[in-house]
């Protein structure tokens, strides 16, 4: 029987400089309702893409497609050189996904959750890696607390540790600063910031920060269509805000 996803064995040869993501006329429908329409953009490896748009524009759906958690309805999607959904298994393990859910088990401690994820990703020197991340996230002393007892901000930091545990090449971040105070935001910015060999796709509602941070921008309309897909320098924060306020449709 053919597997739902295939490993890398049968993957066509990729050049060393495969883009981090490549979307061509991507469409995703939920039933009859289109959520993303004709999205095409390419993100070279090592760069950052900011995804902006009002609520319901399909930003989270796009991120879940890139994370191999959702299948596109139509169009071509390639992540880290692996065409999706067929070669999803090749991309998995090289992606770090931070969504709205922390993806942590409430009845386990933070350390136990990280240990569980480390085993799934076959992380080498897992105790060292876990302690290093907990220390950097300011959670070293809270590592033995059950996840269900953490505050929202602590939970977000723990989820970030999970996202970074296996040193992914591509970070998919859905509003990474949510629930964080200013001090925690600074810690998180350091953890999730640019790094050699790291590509990032960031969904955010902060136009100024996104434009300063990103090399490229994907600006979506409320109906999932594309307003802008290109260099961040071609847009201003005012252009983005106009989309949010409905001045541009």
């Amino acid at each position, binding site marked *: 029987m053919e597997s739902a*996803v295939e490993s890398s064995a049968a993957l066509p040869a990729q050049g060393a400089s495969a883009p981090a993501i490549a979307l061509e006329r991507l469409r995703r429908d939920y039933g009859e309702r289109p959520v993303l329409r004709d999205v095409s953009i390419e993100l070279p490896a090592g760069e950052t893409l900011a995804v902006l748009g009002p609520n319901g524009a399909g930003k989270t759906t796009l991120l879940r497609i890139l994370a191999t958690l959702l299948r596109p309805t139509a169009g071509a999607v390639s992540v880290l050189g692996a065409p999706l959904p067929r070669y999803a298994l090749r991309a998995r393990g090289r992606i770090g996904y931070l969504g709205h859910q922390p993806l942590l*088990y409430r*009845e386990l401690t933070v350390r136990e959750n990280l240990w569980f994820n480390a085993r799934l990703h076959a992380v080498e020197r897992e105790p060292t890696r876990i302690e290093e991340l907990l220390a950097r996230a300011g959670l070293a002393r809270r590592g033995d607390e059950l996840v269900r007892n953490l505050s929202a901000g602590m939970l977000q930091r723990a989820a970030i540790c999970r996202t970074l545990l296996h040193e992914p090449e591509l970070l998919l971040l859905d509003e990474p600063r949510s629930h964080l105070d200013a001090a925690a935001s600074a810690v998180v910015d350091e953890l999730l910031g640019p790094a050699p060999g790291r590509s990032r796709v960031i969904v955010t509602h902060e136009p100024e920060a996104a434009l300063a941070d990103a090399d490229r921008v994907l600006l979506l309309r409320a109906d999932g269509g594309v307003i802008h897909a290109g260099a961040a320098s071609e847009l201003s924060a005012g252009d983005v805000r106009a989309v949010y306020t409905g001045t541009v449709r």
Partner: protein
Amino acid sequence: MSAFRAVLAKDLRTELRTLESVPAMALFAATTFVLFRFGLDRTTLEGALAAGVLLATVLFAAILAINRVFVAEREQGGFDVIRLSPVDGASLYAAKVCVLAIYLGALELIAVPVFAVLFSVEAGGLPALAAMLLLANIGLAAVGALVSSIAVNSRARDLIAPLLLLPLLVPVMIAAAGAAEPLLAAGGPSYADFGQWMGILALYDLVFIAVGYAVYDFLLED
């Protein structure tokens, strides 16, 4: 193998911490035996009736665990965690089958002695009964993990899981009852057709483990 061990350890640790499944199953089984004792107005059971009471009780208690075995994966994002990692779904399936089989074994360690005491069952057939229950547990767990992962995504999972599960488990119940009836017979156990029924149970287990292994990746995907 690492993923299998990780999921197994995670689930057992969670159960030891929360005691959500096994105590509920054991309490259900003990209560059901008491109801049978008064409902049937019997202080002793033997043969087909004894096998029926024991196996039906274990089956319905198993449904409690089967309904819950994927709830954390569904509600806390465990399915996404697995799909984001470079492991195939078969590891998750194999771990969940083991988890359910362990829960059932733990249940029977409590339920069978209670059953034996309440209904004055002769102890001679109990070792063979334990071997039969082991094979029946694997079948229950193999089908239960498969059905539970389908039902857990539905809001009516408490209804859907038994509706899908019970017809699939009819062969297990026939073979298990066939094996148990002579073991619980009045006047001492008989082992006449025991090997044949055990063979049927083993074949059933193999078929459903193979089916689960083959289809599980498809069940996990969007």
